């Protein structure tokens, strides 16, 4: 169980997150949703110890200090491209950076290849990461994160800028890993229909605060969408049974900024 208590984050004296509390069960994917600039990325970074924050993060009832969080919690940043000519296999190996020595053991290499195989990327192992498409690159970075074998994986917009096929592959693998290894996954997302389909739970953030938290069927309502996003939207069950969200129009009372 991952527990966060009273997480507060501020930049240059301006509070971005206000006393965030939540618990995350093993084997589940939680979608963190909300408008742009509402603090989703900051919350993930604070949980991973990549920015300074107040509050506590506990894993299995043990409090992890800020400086040690990134050792215990894996974090996959948003894809912003890669100019490097590091090979795909080298990138995956870096997932276990702390345990790599001058020589790479055959077992480690085989495990890295197995991580690539899960995404059908083994044929790209010698290719430069900078030469891959955005979708392939994101799969490689996900393979890198999973190669680490994390207890907790935080993902910042893992499906942003991906085509439909890659969106499905990314989320299917995350859910599959949660179910098979008990990994706790928390992903900041914008696509509410994808969140409704794949996440066990959705946490709505607005103005740095949690405004709704629960199973998709419980929290994905027209009222919440209106309150958080200031849009009129239709929420209906799709063909797969998961909720489908269709934004209709932006409401006039949208807050400034």
């Amino acid at each position, binding site marked *: 169980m991952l527990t966060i208590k009273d997480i507060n984050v501020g930049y240059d004296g301006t509070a971005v997150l206000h006393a965030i509390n939540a618990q995350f069960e093993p084997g589940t994917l939680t979608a963190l949703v909300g408008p742009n600039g509402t603090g989703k990325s900051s919350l993930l970074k604070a949980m991973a110890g990549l920015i300074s924050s107040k509050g506590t993060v506990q894993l299995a009832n043990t409090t992890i200090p800020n400086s040690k969080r990134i050792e215990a919690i894996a*974090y996959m*940043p948003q894809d912003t491209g*890669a100019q490097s*000519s590091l*090979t795909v296999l080298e990138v995956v190996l*870096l997932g276990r*950076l702390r345990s790599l020595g001058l020589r790479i053991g055959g*077992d480690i290499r085989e495990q890295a290849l197995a991580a690539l195989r899960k995404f059908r990327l083994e044929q790209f192992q*010698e290719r430069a*990461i900078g030469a891959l498409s955005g979708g392939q690159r994101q799969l490689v970075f996900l393979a890198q994160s999973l190669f680490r074998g994390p207890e907790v994986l935080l993902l910042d917009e893992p499906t942003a800028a991906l085509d439909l096929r890659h969106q499905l592959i990314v989320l299917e693998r995350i859910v599959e890993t949660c179910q098979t290894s008990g990994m706790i996954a928390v992903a900041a997302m914008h696509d509410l229909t994808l969140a409704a389909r794949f996440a066990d739970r959705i946490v709505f953030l607005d103005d740095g605060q949690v405004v709704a938290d629960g199973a998709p069927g419980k929290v994905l309502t027209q009222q919440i969408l209106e309150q958080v996003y200031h849009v009129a939207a239709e929420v209906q069950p799709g063909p797969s049974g998961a909720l489908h969200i269709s934004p209709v129009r932006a409401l006039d009372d949208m807050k400034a900024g």
Partner: protein
Amino acid sequence: MTITTNSAVALLPNVSRRMMWLGASVLLLSFAILADILIGPAFLNVFDVLGALVNPSGASDPMTVTIVHAIRLPMTLMALIVGASLGIAGVQMQTILGNPLASPYTLGFSAAAGFGAAITILFGLQLPLIPQMTVPVAAFAAASVACLMVYGLAHIRGVTAEVMVLAGIATLFMFQSLQSLVQYLAAPEVLQEIVFWLFGSMLKASWFSVWVSGSVLLFCLALLVPDMWKLTALRLGDERAASLGVHVPRLRRRVFFIVSLLTAGAVAFVGTIGFVGLVAPHIARMLVGEDQRILIPASAVLGALLMVGASIASKLLSPGAVVPVGIVTALVGVPFLFALILTGKRRHW
């Protein structure tokens, strides 16, 4: 899952190809070292030189032993050490600044060393007990001042690549201006001495400089080895490296000081030598990729190869005299780089 256990080394598939390139470079460097020792105003026989190197006491020609050990070997070893130092300094500067145009000179260390040397020559300063060390000590001290200036600014504004590049460029221009001022004020004969130092020449090499610069190189290499994977990760960008557990500002700060030390150690004795620190890492990266376990030794070997090659060319260009090696480094390195750009398939930046 199939676990491969039959190979203790278990090299990655392309690692053996990279090792082959590294091995070929080492072989080429060995030949270049021998050629550099052989070439000079006095004609030496290759077997006499080999004898003088392997078994000086049993060598048939004492004159050859004297020339090799007192004159040519220190110059060749110094070229090797300076080239290796600048190669490593260059690759690390490009890594921590995430900039392909970065080199040991980007942050002004070399310009500062030049100023330190120039001002000492201008005023005829001499250290009390070790007068022959005055210029190297002044060059080293000035490079350290430049390093502290850049670091001080970065410490205040944040140890990011952008801040360091800007602070470095400001430092570079400041010391270049001071250098020009010293040259402007100098009398013609002093100016000649200053300009000769600034060109960079292996004629200033001695066994003492070999030991000092060699020790600095080995010390810095030992400091870099534990961070090789972290430096490899840095090529994915600051945020990704941080997400892999790399404390990026700490790594950048640490490597910055190592680069400063390497550069100061290399240029303090022989003067400013450009191009090697910029190009050797690029050639190395094209041949062996970005895995720093191989990239660091490859940059060192190729930097050394460029320097020793330049040293040979500097002797051949003007028979009977030696053109300062700093003048010919680019002439030697550019064909290499052009060939690799034209034939290379991978994108590196």
